[in-house]
């Protein structure tokens, strides 16, 4: 009997065109919290999916659970063996009750006409929730719960299945700070019970708070497994990306011109209130804040999607009314949304069709019809200037990598020659090389006179691109920082507490020029 509850060795996975995992190993001890960490595309999710039985590993893999060879063909096999996986998008049934969501899956191998024992279901659900020390009405449909509560339901389900290993994939990505704290408590609680936890995340700070050991993956390869105490954030970043620093902080001190964009007392009920700021020519404003601070809602309101609003919006000193995204584009506003795959791009359509979409009006020939030539020229222009790869204008955008997809979206909006570009989570799901490239591009656009607003939850990113940083909290502007005085700490304090400096670390918060670690919200 080995000392590990889970042993995965020589795990490789080849997809058409890519080797997603190459001889990776993962060993988990009973009752430990184990962080699985790596950049986007490092292979974390692929490894988890093999563990879950969604993918088969390439031949040669060794996979032992509780000392026995694990034969996992489909997801439910893993669950029944005691491996529960909590996916980022959760696996709940919005229309079913809390109790049933906790119970579901146990009957999947039994006779279809077997009578459902509701009393038994409720008992199991109740005891699982009790174990977690939470109180939620068992009969409520899950769609009425907050994301944090839904996550607890998933954990309760794992407990109800007597899970010995729980995998949590980016569990904090949609939680508020308070909810994250509660989740940590739950995790500690599970650990006490001897349950092992694999914690998948790319947020370094939180990993140090909860994890005992780390396994680092890079580009589908195994980098190593480390005790928490032998690491610090710098070291971990180094292991993840293979170099010391993520981004350099923006130095500031640029020449700024007149005001290009201004909002005054912008409010929307249940979204944000009294938002006022100015954007000067040449500068980049970064807007940041926790989940639920209203940053994306604000951006979408300016872009005419989240309407109606009260207050005033001015472009080049001129007051404008924006009732729809069509109005916004007409007035010279471009918005690159957070979710590239559902909001930013039409994946089924070609690069050409995506880039030309907002400017079809300008691509018409003498008969008022779309000129294919103008369209192709336009697409080729941006493919060239933004170095989009592969440079195939007819390629469906769904077949491209994240970074190149983002370049297509940027190209699409540059084609509208916007006066103001709002970009929401500009480098979400993009590899590190492309990230810096996009940051450089944003700075260049601003220096050429375009108003640029960057919305991001990744503080190093905000610090790397912005000249001024607006921190939002509960739908209001909590504070504004010039880049020279901004640090991850004082931004965090605004975001969490609404003031620049927290009581305990009044003496900290002096500007560090280099951003060492990747705190994100």
């Amino acid at each position, binding site marked *: 009997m080995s000392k590990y509850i889970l042993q995965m060795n020589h795990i490789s996975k080849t997809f058409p065109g890519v080797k997603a995992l190459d001889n990776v190993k993962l060993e988990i001890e009973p009752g430990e919290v184990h962080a699985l960490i790596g950049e986007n595309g490092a292979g974390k999710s692929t490894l988890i999916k093999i563990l879950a039985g969604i993918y088969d590993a390439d031949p040669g893999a060794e996979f032992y659970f509780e000392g026995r060879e694990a034969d996992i063909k489909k997801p439910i096999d893993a669950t029944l063996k005691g491996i529960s996986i909590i996916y980022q998008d959760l696996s709940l*049934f919005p229309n079913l009750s809390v109790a049933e969501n906790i119970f*579901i*899956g146990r009957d999947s191998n039994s006779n*279809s006409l077997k*009578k459902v024992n*509701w009393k038994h279901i409720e008992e199991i659900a109740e005891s699982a929730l009790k174990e977690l020390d939470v109180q939620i009405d068992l009969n409520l449909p899950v769609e009425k719960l907050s994301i944090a509560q839904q996550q607890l339901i998933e954990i309760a389900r794992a407990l109800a299945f007597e899970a010995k290993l729980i995998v949590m994939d980016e569990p904090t990505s949609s939680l508020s700070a308070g909810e994250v704290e509660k989740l940590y408590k739950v995790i500690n609680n599970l650990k006490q019970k001897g349950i092992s936890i694999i914690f998948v995340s790319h947020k370094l700070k939180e990993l140090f708070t909860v994890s005992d050991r780390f396994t680092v993956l890079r580009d589908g390869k195994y980098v190593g497994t480390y005790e928490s105490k032998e690491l610090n954030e710098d070291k971990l970043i180094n292991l993840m990306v293979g170099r010391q620093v993520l981004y350099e902080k923006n130095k500031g001190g640029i020449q700024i011109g007149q005001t290009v964009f201004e909002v005054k007392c912008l409010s929307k009920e249940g979204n944000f209130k009294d938002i006022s700021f100015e954007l000067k020519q040449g500068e980049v404003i970064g807007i940041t804040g926790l989940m639920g601070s*209203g940053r994306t809602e604000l951006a979408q309101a300016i872009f005419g999607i989240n309407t109606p609003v009260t207050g005033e919006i001015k472009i080049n000193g001129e007051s404008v009314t924006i009732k729809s995204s069509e109005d916004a584009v007409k007035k010279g506003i471009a918005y690159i949304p957070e979710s590239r795959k559902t909001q930013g791009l039409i994946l089924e359509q070609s690069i050409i069709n995506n880039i030309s979409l907002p400017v079809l009006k300008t691509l018409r020939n003498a008969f008022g019809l779309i000129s294919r030539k103008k369209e192709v020229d336009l697409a080729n222009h941006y493919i060239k200037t933004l170095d989009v790869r592969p440079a195939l204008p007819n390629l469906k955008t769904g077949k491209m990598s994240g970074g190149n997809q983002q370049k297509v979206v940027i190209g699409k909006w540059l084609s509208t020659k916007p006066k103001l570009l709002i970009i929401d989570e500009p480098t979400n799901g993009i590899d590190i090389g492309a990230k810096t490239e996009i940051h450089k591009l944003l700075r260049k656009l601003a220096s050429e006179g375009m108003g640029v607003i960057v919305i991001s939850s990744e503080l190093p990113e905000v610090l790397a691109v912005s000249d001024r940083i607006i921190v939002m909290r509960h*739908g209001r502007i909590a504070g504004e920082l010039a880049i020279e005085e901004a640090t991850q700490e004082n931004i965090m304090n605004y975001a969490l507490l609404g003031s620049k400096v927290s009581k305990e670390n009044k003496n900290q918060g002096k500007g560090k020029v280099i951003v060492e670690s990747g705190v994100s919200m």
Partner: protein
Amino acid sequence: MKSILKSKEMSIALIIVMLSIVLSFISPVFFTFENITDILKGNAVLGILAIGMTLVIITGGIDVSVAAVTTAVIVILGKILVFLPDSPISIVLMFIIAPLIGVILGALNGMLVSKIQIPAIVVTLGTMSMINGIILYITNGQYLNSTSFPKIFVKFANFEIFGISILIILFALISIGAWYLLKYTVIGREVLAIGGNKESSIRAGINFDKVQIFVYGFMGLLAGVAAIAQLSYTKAVDPNGLLGFEMQVIAAVVLGGANIMGGRGTIIGTFLGVLLLGIMQNGLILAHIDVFWQKVVVGAIILLAVTFDQIQYKRSKDKLAKIEVEA
């Protein structure tokens, strides 16, 4: 308690009550035992099919071939009944053959939807066209009355318990059975689960294909029972009698609050939806309103119901998306 009052079923029930009150003022006949049982009897076929359709719609599917399948079973029953002896065994045989044919035809739809992954509306359009063709080929569109059927069949069709027609009893049994199935069996819960979230159901080990085949098969089974009911009600084989009936079935289910996108729908809701359609029809007749107005009213009610439903859905979604803004 509050949630019960706010539920969709409650609002339909309220509409039914109000409509009934108005109707009882218009016509004293409305609140008679006879009239009420007439309404139920006249809508038993619609009801039985709507119950099956509820399950299909809960999974996010649709079956426009129901009327064709029902008619096909009626035609086959008509052919067989002529040769059956005048004994109770014939009724038993009828209750074996009809559902069986229905299940086979329904499962065929289910196989095409699940295994070949063709959208349900297209599959059932195709099978509907084929089945209608076959019916036309066999019958030449000819009406066949029940004079050549065994006498026991006519007895069965007229059978009543305490003055309640066998058709109503059939409808009631099916409703209760389907309610039990949805609430208390594993497969019933799986129907709701796959309609709620396909991805989650696969992760939870639910056999997605199996559930889909079951749902369409069950729809077929009820089409078989509905065929018996229709044959008993009209006492004749009319190959064109149910032409276009599928739309009414879908309308009843939608009125009953089931969501065409899947995940939502109850037997009680559908039952009320059927009742609402039936009472409306009855009311128009009692109020001496031209029968031609019926469709106008039904169409308008469907539009109002789906519009209202959508607006409510949007509101609740907006509410969920709200952020706590600091005052």
